[in-house]
Structure formats: C-alpha cells, structure tokens
C-alpha cells in the first residue's frame, strides 16, 4: 500500500529517533502482542535503545522489543509521513 514511499524501512535496522509505524506484518499471536501495546500502523514511536532486544518509547510507556519482532514492523521517519496517506487511512475521523 505504501510501496511508493522510498523512505520506508524496517524497525529492526533503525537508529535511535522518532518514527511512524507504517505497517505491522506479523500474524496471529505476535500481531496481537505487538498491536495491543501500541505498535501498530499509524502510531508514532521513538527508538531509545538499540540492540536486541531494543527499547521503544510510545507515548508514556517504554517497551522492550526483540529484533525478531522488530523485523515485522515497517517504519518511516516521523516527519515525512505526517500527514501522509497511511496515517490518514489508519486514523478515525
């Protein structure tokens, strides 16, 4: 869906900084475990600690995330996508 965007990358390889989550490609339990903690399309997240597992900051909560799961998460730099097509799509009016 967002394939036209060139700046989209995978969270597993990202550096510290703010990103917007574009897509979560996990399935089953892994998808639920990620999304219910707020790692889902349209949300902004900050990578605060690199490594495996890595540390994310989502709003007020801190989340430890293994690299394996971070591979499912595609991201774009936060500024580039606000307000972008994906963000619009995922948000409710």
């Amino acid at each position, binding site marked *: 869906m967002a394939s036209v965007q060139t700046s989209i990358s995978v969270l597993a390889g990202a550096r510290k900084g703010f990103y917007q989550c574009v897509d979560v490609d996990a399935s089953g339990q892994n998808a639920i475990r990620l999304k219910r903690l707020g790692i889902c399309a349209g949300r902004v997240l900050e990578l605060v600690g690199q490594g495996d597992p890595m540390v994310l900051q989502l709003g007020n909560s801190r*989340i430890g995330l293994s690299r394996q799961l971070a591979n499912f998460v595609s991201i774009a730099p936060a500024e580039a996508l606000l307000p972008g097509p994906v963000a619009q799509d995922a*948000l409710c009016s």
Partner: protein
Amino acid sequence: MSSPPQISVGSSSDSALPVVSRTDAFPVVLLVGNPNVGKTSLFNALAGMRAKVANYPGITVDLRKASLHVSAVDADSRCQATQTVELVDLPGLYSMQTASPEEDVAARSIRGELTGRLHEPPNAVVVVVDATNLSRTLVLASEILELNLPTIVAVNLIDSAEANGTQIDFDALRQKLDCPVIPVSARKGRGLAELREAIYELTQPEQKPLPISRGSCVAGCQGCPFSARFQWADDVTNQSVRQGTRGQVQLAWLDRWLTSPALGLFALLAVMLGVFFLIFSLAGLPMDVIESVFGMVGEWADQALPTDNSNAVLYYPLAIGGTLALFALAYWLNETKWNKWSASIAVAVALLVAVLPVDDFRSLVIDGVIGGTAGVVVFLPQICILFFVITLLEDSGYMARGAFVMERVMRRVGLPGKAFVPMLSAHACAIPGIMAARTIENWRDRLVTILVLPLLTCSARLPVYVMVTALLFGDDPMRASVLFAAAYLLGITAALSSAFLLKKTIVPGEAAPLVLELPNYRLPSLRNALLTTLDRAIVFLRQAGTIILLISVVLWGLATYPKMPESEMPADEMQQAAAQLEYSIAGRVGKVIEPVFAPLGFDWKIDVGIVTSFAAREVVVSTLSIVYGLGEEGAEDGGLIETLRRQTKPDGTPVFTTATSISLLVFFVLAMQCLPTQVVTKRETGSWKWAGFQFGFMTLLAYGGSLIAYQTLTAMGY
C-alpha cells in the same frame, strides 16, 4: 505438543452442571484493567484482609474474590442503605483480544462465558486505569465501554500523578467516557468511599439501567482497530490531562544502564547475589527458633502422651478426638468440605489410630506428625524472605528489566526472558516458581519453564547439601562453600540444558520473541510486599499442613511396619531402631532395589533414604540418621556426620567415600523428589502426563548424572 489446560466453556460437560442463577446471590463486580495498574492493590484496599483466593470451577487461574459492603453516602449512618457485592480481582489484560490463558480467563469473565458464578456477564465492571499513563490504559477501557455493561472507571495512582505535577480534568473525562470516573489511590487509600458509593449506585437491583449504548471509537473506521483505539485514547487524554514531567526524567539514565547488554547483566547478577545473601544471612535465626519450638513441642508431647492405655476412659477419647481435630485442621487449611466421604475417612483413621499399640501411637504423633511438619515449616523463613524481596523488586519495576536483559541469554536455550522471574522464585521453592510462570504468555514457553524449574536448587535440598559438604569438607569451609556453589550451578546448568534438549525434541519451537512493557520505576510499597509474603506463607503452610503431613505419616507407616518380632530384636537399644527399619517395608524395598543403585555407589541403607525421600527430599537426612542407628535425635547434633564417616562396607572400606558422597549430592540436585510440586505441575499443565514426564526425565537425569560422577571419581581413585 499439547494445548494449554482447557478452560471449559460451553462444552458438553458444562451443560450438565447446575447453572446457578445469580438473581438471588450478591451482584458480581469485576476489577478489570491492564497489568500493573494496581487492581490487586485496589482490591486489597477495598476488601482489607477479607480477601480469599478462590478457584473458580474449570479455571486453572486463581481469581481472588471478596465480599464487600457498599453503601450510599448518607449523613445519617443509621438509615444508610447497604448492599453486599462480590468483588473479583481479575488477571491483568491489555485487550479483549487475548494472548495468554490468564488474559483469556479475564476476557471470558467479562463476557460471562465461564462456568459457575461467572457464567453470565457481571453486574458491574470497575475498569482501573493508570493516572500516570492514561493514554495507554484507556485503550482497554474503550473496549470495555463498548460492551455496554454498567461500568465505572477508577483512575488509580492519582497520588503519583499529582507528585509528577499531572493535572486531570475529571469532568471532561466523565463526559468523554460517558460513565462515572473516580480518582483513587490504592496506596494512599484515597477515593475509596466514592468508589464504594459508585459501586452501590450501579448495583441497585431496582435501578435496572436502560440499555446502555455508548458510541464506538472504531465504528466506520477501516484502518487497524487498535490504532483507532490508541488514537481515541490519545485524544481523550489530550483533552483532559495536562501532563506533568516532574520526577520522570531522573531515572532515564538508570534505565539506560540497566537495559544495556553488558552492564544490565552485571547488575542482574549483583541483584541475584544480593537476594541470596539476604536469604542466608537473615533466615538462620528464625529457622533455629522454629526448630527449637518444634523440638519443645515434641518433648512436651513425649511427656504428655500416655505411656499405657489401661485407662481406657481417657485414652480412647484422646486418641480419637486428637485425630479428628487434626483432620478438622487439615480440612480447614485445605478447604476440604465435610461430606460423607471426607467424614468417613476421618472417622476410619481416628478409629485405626485408637487401636494402634501405645508405643506406635506415641511414635506416630512425635515422629510422624510433629517431626514431619517441623521438617517442612523450617523452610518458611527462607521462602518468606525471598518473596518479600522479589515483591519489592517487582514493585519497583526492576524485574521487567531483568527479563529484558535475560532475553538474549535465555532465548538460546528456548526459554523466554520472562522465565527468569520464576527461576529466581524456584530457588526458594519450585511451587511458587511454577505459579510465577503464569506471567509467561506463550503456552509452549510456559510449559518448558515449568518442566525445568524443579531442577533449580530449592531450600529443601539444602539439608542434603549441608550434610554432604560437612561429610566431605567439614573442616575446610573454603572448599565446602565451593562444593555448595557447584551444586547450585549444576542445578542451573541442568535446567538450561534440559530446556535446550526439550526445544530440540518434544517441545519444539523457539520461545516467543519478547515484547514487554517496561513499567516506570515506582517506590515499592512495604504493605504490599508484606501482604504478598503473608499470602505465600499461607499457601505454603497449607501445603505443609495437608499434603506433606500426609506424606510424613505414610512414610512413618512404611518405616514402622511390619513390626519385627520381639525375639529377633538385638539387645543394643541403638541397634533396635535400625534393625526394625531393616525389617519394615521401607527397609525391604531398599534391599530389593540395591542392585539398581549399586552402580551409583549407594548401599541399601542409602537406598532406604532415596525411597523415603521420594515424596519430600529433605526427609533423607532424618532417614539416614535412623538407618545408621542414631534414632531421630542423631540428625540434630553433629552426630550424624561422625556416624556416617565411621560406616564401613563388609570389606572394611568406608561407605561414604568421596565418590559416593558426590554421587549422592548429584542425585539430590537433579532428582524430582517432591510430590507437592508434581501436584502443582499437574494443576498448571492440566494433565498428569506432564507431571509424569517431569518425574521421568529428572529421575533419568539424576541417575545418569550420579552414575557418571561416581564412575569417574572411582576411576580417578577417590
């Protein structure tokens, strides 16, 4: 691979159950919320010490429930209307889309899909949210609100939100959420009266609320529904909260350290060593006290119990009444109901006890009941200290960091990082460790953790470690402590390598990768830690008072009967007990299995110890003391060690060579000798299959380990 224990809902066996209608019972109020928002604290604050852990039918999860009196706030307290409700503390859940068996229980309770009292939706729901993290915790609230149940939102941790300088506009929040919103602090006891009143209002039978229909935040939204909920929660929060930042930033540097790969592991190691140091340095005194109290009780019983039953009027009522009283106590502890069966068992045993020869009756009371209980209760201080410290650590938010840094290490053997907390608990006792494994969401990971936990050194192994180290290096504390540490390390290594082997064989697959919330650091609450410790102590004593008491009595019977004829008794009193033991069932079994254990360097007397410690490993020390002709008391003073050193085989060489001693130690590190643990494994995995498997693989491991140790050491000439 098997599936998790089934929580039966709507199965055929269910429909056979009588469905109790709740109309005539108290209204049910559920405490719902994300993990770690303070549901249990709020539950304790509301219910005080009246809380009771209940096991709802068909569920393997303990739901805590309590009867709670709620009332309308009225100036005149005499005509105040009151209402009793049943308050239930549910396991935390992030979403109604669940990812663990416990979350599933919570979600089903909310939907009223369980059997028994929770077979219909609750009369009211209290959604607990975290004032310091409203946007995150409101996400679940949005899902609950859409269920259109009578709902109250309790905004907990208001004290720490205020300490941060966060300001919340509750009127705006009420309007947005369209339900009562009450600021509370479970820790400081604030807002409890208002919460009670709100519960009262919602559970009034005459006030049947109109069908509630709240708008859905995901209605008409095509994107990810989670994302929509998060967005909604963000919007609500933005419109009602002015976030403070006081007291938040200072700990960022600490977190950077504690979650960094190298320093984090180092810190974890330091914390664990600190915990063990506390256990060993603080538990000694209370353990001595408990031992001497039981010693005094034993002596008192020795004096007080009649030595002959000629006075039948006094003796029989005493024996029967005493036994019945003990049964009453055990049933009460175990929450067994008096019915036809349980009463007949109690009466039958009481009559049997009454017709025992007087000497046997005395020995049953002193050795079986008092001695058996003492052997277990003595571990209570260590367990209490461990849980106190663990609860403080959990409260502070550190444990999640521990799981975080352990993730990389544990993954290699197919365990999740979260297994680290149960593994720490298991160093006091496997049972609470297995229960702590419930925090592991994934069923496969939880199963592997449960299976390997009993390999870790629990406190019941310590008497054996103490005995063997004293036997080998009694005069060399340095080498003794190295051996001691080696035994611990062997347990840890065995647990990790077993997990690895399980991953490669019968429980294949990788551990579910980590995604874990790292909660904000909080100052731990002493009260909470004390309450949890008390809870654990009660659970433990309940075990000791029932299952372990039963085991001790059965063992006593096996080691006492059949009686040796008077004519065959040796003259020497010291030898009599040993001769009798040899004659008993336990002794005969020891002789029969001697060839099996001979390759490990054990003689039949040690085998008797192995047999009697099958159900509770700590029994081996007192058994050895009996087999080697010391009587019960011998175990206490240093007599046992000296006696063991003097033992010789028929050919004159000592029995307890270095090789035999080490082999015995290895066996006790690795063997599954704890019936209560097996019972808990069965309960938590839902089948005896896994308990049996656990027993089998640990026994094989123990046998193999001891065999290697003994054969290698003898070959090396020790």
